[in-house]
C-alpha cells in the first residue's frame, strides 16, 4: 500500500503517539528496540538540557530573525511531547541568561524535540509502508 493510499486513521494515531511519547510510535509498530533507543536519547537530551539550566522558548514576533528563532525554538521544544509538557507543568521556567552552559542546555532542549521530530517522521514512514 503506498503512502498516499494509506488511510489517515492508520497512521495518525501512530504519529500522535510518537509525538506524545518519544519512541511511542515505534513501540506501537513493534519496533521495540528502536523505540527504547529513541526514548532514551530524547529523555537524556532533555534531562541534560534541564540540568544545564537551558531556557525553553516561547513564541515571539518582531523582525524575521527573532520570529524564526523564537517560534522555531518553541515548535522544536513542543516536539518533545510529554517530556516538554511535564517540564512546563512542573514549573520549570529558566530565564535565558548568558553563559555557555545555559546556552548548551537550551540547545539540548531544542535537540530533544528535533530528535523526536525525526522519530515521528520515521514512524509515519513505517506506518505507511515506505520502509520497515
Amino acid at each position, binding site marked *: 500500500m503506498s503512502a498516499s493510499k494509506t488511510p489517515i486513521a492508520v497512521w495518525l494515531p501512530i504519529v500522535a503517539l510518537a509525538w506524545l511519547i518519544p519512541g511511542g510510535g515505534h513501540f506501537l509498530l513493534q519496533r521495540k528496540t*528502536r523505540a527504547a*533507543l*529513541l526514548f532514551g*536519547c530524547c529523555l*537524556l*537530551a532533555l534531562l*541534560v538540557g*534541564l*540540568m*544545564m*539550566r537551558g531556557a525553553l522558548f516561547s513564541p515571539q514576533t518582531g523582525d524575521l530573525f527573532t520570529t524564526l528563532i523564537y517560534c522555531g525554538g518553541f515548535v522544536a521544544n513542543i516536539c518533545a511531547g510529554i517530556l516538554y509538557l511535564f517540564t512546563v507543568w512542573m514549573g520549570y521556567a529558566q530565564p535565558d541568561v548568558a553563559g*555557555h*552552559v545555559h546556552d*548548551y542546555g537550551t*540547545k*539540548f532542549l531544542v*535537540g530533544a524535540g528535533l*530528535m523526536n521530530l*525525526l*522519530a515521528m*517522521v*520515521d514512524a509515519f514512514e513505517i506506518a505507511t509502508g515506505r*520502509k*520497515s
Partner: protein
Amino acid sequence: MPRMALSHFEASLLFALLASVVLGIVTKRSDRERLLYGAYCFGCFVASLFGLGWLMYLGHR
C-alpha cells in the same frame, strides 16, 4: 534537579553521540546499515568539532 556544567567539548560529544544514534535509527533499513551510519555520523561530528576548533583557534591568533 541537580546542576550539570559540561565543558564545550563534553557537551558537543554528548550531543554528537545522541544525534548520531537517532540519525542511524531513522535513516537506514537494516541494523548493520544503522550501526555503520550512526558511527559515520558520529565520526563526522567529531571531525567537524576538531576542525572548527582549530579554525577558531588559528583565526584568533
